[in-house]
């Protein structure tokens, strides 16, 4: 019942069917044209590959809902990864230290973004663009421009599986579930929509706009840090130049999922669909061994086409 109501109140789900259709269509095509797509091992594979973008996308959903944007995702992923790796040399610290430091780094970057946006009154685009270059620079400085290697297996194993399920996927799933419940069921979540929907009105209704925004950017940063840790574990190094343009894939996933860039509309469920769509396209095109050149073209066309279909039937 509550679940049902949540679905209804999650305004964007009502017209996410367009994306679902495209998703099913493409999956069907891939299952038909390749003998490897529909295999369990490949689906685990896809799951593993979407996890990082998934965590980022859920995080940035909060920011986009307030009507903001975060371009610093990719660089902060790299920075958190490097920091994590620096503390992850075997036998130096307990496993929690590198993880904690990675999350902390991300969280602090996010909070700083939030402070500059709320107290400083600077456009999120500029703030996070600045953070994008600053974080990248810091990652390069801390790592001396070279990958930070020699990470303890205890950490790199976190990229592995428990039973059939990849641990990164579990992180993504957990993050998504919690965020979904939070946005739908909690006061602060509701306030996020209010701020994004009409900021002055939200303020007039007694919502503390700065608090809400600070929370959104901080949480987004924290999740970016998590993504950084997961990435470092996955590639067993802290790469100062990792995560290039990750923000674009993440934001694309969110917008494909029906969250409006002007804020106030959308939610996590749509974001998950967007993440899956992008992940399946990437996986499928590789399976079909389409030339990299054409991959770019096809990917672009599918994404725009999907959103177009979706919006069209949303209107009708």
């Amino acid at each position: 019942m509550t679940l049902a109501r949540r679905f209804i109140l999650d305004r964007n789900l009502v017209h996410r069917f367009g994306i679902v259709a495209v998703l099913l269509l493409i999956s069907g095509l891939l299952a038909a044209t390749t003998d490897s797509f529909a295999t369990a091992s490949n689906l685990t594979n896809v799951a593993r590959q979407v996890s990082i973008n998934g965590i980022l996308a859920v995080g940035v959903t909060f920011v986009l809902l307030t009507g903001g944007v975060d371009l610093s995702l990719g660089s902060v992923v790299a920075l958190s990864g490097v920091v994590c790796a620096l503390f992850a040399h075997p036998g130096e610290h307990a496993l929690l230290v590198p993880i904690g430091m990675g999350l902390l780094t991300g969280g602090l970057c996010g909070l700083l973004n939030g402070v500059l946006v709320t107290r400083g009154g600077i456009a999120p685009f500029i703030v996070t663009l600045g953070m994008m270059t600053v974080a990248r620079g810091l990652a390069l400085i801390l790592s001396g421009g070279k990958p930070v290697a020699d990470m303890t297996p205890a950490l790199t194993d976190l990229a592995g599986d428990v039973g059939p399920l990849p641990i990164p996927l579990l992180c993504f799933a957990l993050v998504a579930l919690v965020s979904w419940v939070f946005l739908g069921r909690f006061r602060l979540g509701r306030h996020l929509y209010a701020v994004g929907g009409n900021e002055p009105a939200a303020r007039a209704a007694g919502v503390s706009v700065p608090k809400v925004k600070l929370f959104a950017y901080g949480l987004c940063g924290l999740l970016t840090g998590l993504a950084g840790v997961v990435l470092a574990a996955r590639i067993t190094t802290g790469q100062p130049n990792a995560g290039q343009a990750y923000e674009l894939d993440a934001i694309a996933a969110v917008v494909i999922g029906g969250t409006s860039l002007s804020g106030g509309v959308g939610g996590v469920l749509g974001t998950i669909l967007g993440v899956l769509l992008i992940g399946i396209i990437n996986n499928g095109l590789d399976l079909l061994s389409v030339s990299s050149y054409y991959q770019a073209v096809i990917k672009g066309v599918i994404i725009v086409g999907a959103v177009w279909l979706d919006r069209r039937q949303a209107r009708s």
Partner: protein
Amino acid sequence: MLRAVQLTKTFGGLTVLQDVSLDFRPGEVHALMGENGAGKSTLMKMLAGLHRPDGGEIQWRGRTVRFANPHDALAQGIAMVHQELMPIPDLDVAENLLLGLEPVDAFGWVDRAELHRQARHWLAALDTDLDTRQPMRRLSVAQIQVVEIAKALARQADVILMDEPTAALSDHEVAALFRAIDGLRRRGVAVVYTTHKMDEVFRLADRLSVLRDGRLVHTAPAAELTPSALINHMVGRELAKVFPPVVTTPGEVVLEVRGLTREPAYRDISFTLRRGEVLGLAGLMGAGRTEIAEALYGLRPATAGEIRLRDRPVRLLSPQDALAAGLGMVTEDRKGLGIIPAMSVQHNLTLSALARFSSPTGIDASAESRATAEQIEAYAIKTRDPGQPIGELSGGNQQKVLLARALLAGPDVVILDEPTRGIDIGAKAEIYALIGRLSAAGKAVLLISSELPEILALTHRLLVLRQGELSAELDPRHTTQEEILRHAMPR
């Protein structure tokens, strides 16, 4: 010359207008009446090319026309004053007023001097004098409304649709508008006019048409209708006496204001407000009423002066502080400082009182929807379901939701800034009754209104504001509209 034939419109399965046929004649002021959500705006929007009819057709000078967008309608000579104000905040007044009509010189350059000259001309036609070079965002709601009307006049259309043009105006501008309308009538322009103010209708209209629940229930020459008959058609029942008697006797002082100042809007404002008292604040547009209210509610804090609640000085720097201190407000600017359009009616309604439904495990969804259902019931809010985006509601129904929001938070002091703006008389009666109940319940009410009869009938005491200064305190039982205006007029 303009004829609506069997017009029908549905939104999301809900039919909001059904088989409405009307014709609008040159030189005639045709008043559209009806309760909130009756479909007046929808009808006008179809005539103005904003909505496409789902059924029926529009005939213009005998030919059937389909308007793809307002541009087409304007090209045919049909202009509209919209119910919701639509300023373009960062363009200046002249550019807003003449948007799309900018005079250009031989090189296709916009002729600024001419632009501002024309803008001043059209504003003068409404007996208003604004600096046409200031950006629109600086204007008060009332001033924006005037510009919107001038905008329509400037189109020099053959048909002008006016959707509650006086909602935000005070008597001075209203009078000017009426003179302008008489002028249009003489020039053979067809005027379609919507309002919830009875007196206006009978002052202006040659013909009256009444919509109820999307259907045309009556149309006749104004002369053939009495106010009570009209109300009858609108509401479908006899209305009880509109104004409830002022019964309660004020208790001890809850709110005390001393020397409140915020140049240039207002200065040295001092007054007290007692438990159970309804205090009126009257004044002309731009007198500073809204800004005082906004200062009390923490929206735009004053630069000097003291606010005391229950004998304790309070610093209200944000609406949050105000709500926490037991102060609630319904703002005058419904669209800008009121609704959150994309949010559902329920979420808008409970926004200020969410804390009450929240627990560590989250919002109690069932309690919230129960409360919402009650409020929708209590205020007779017309909505498809609590999940409908409030932006889709009719203006009046949006206003009711906002009232419910403010009161659901359970404040002791309630500030109502133009609470009945754009509300039908049925609903008005409800709100008047509500104000009565509030004071009976021991709440203190500060009522700002440009409708003097309303203020006179509902308040215990009456403050008059002139250019940001208190010019008089009057006893509504022993004063007249004329006296109020005398104190309000700038000198």
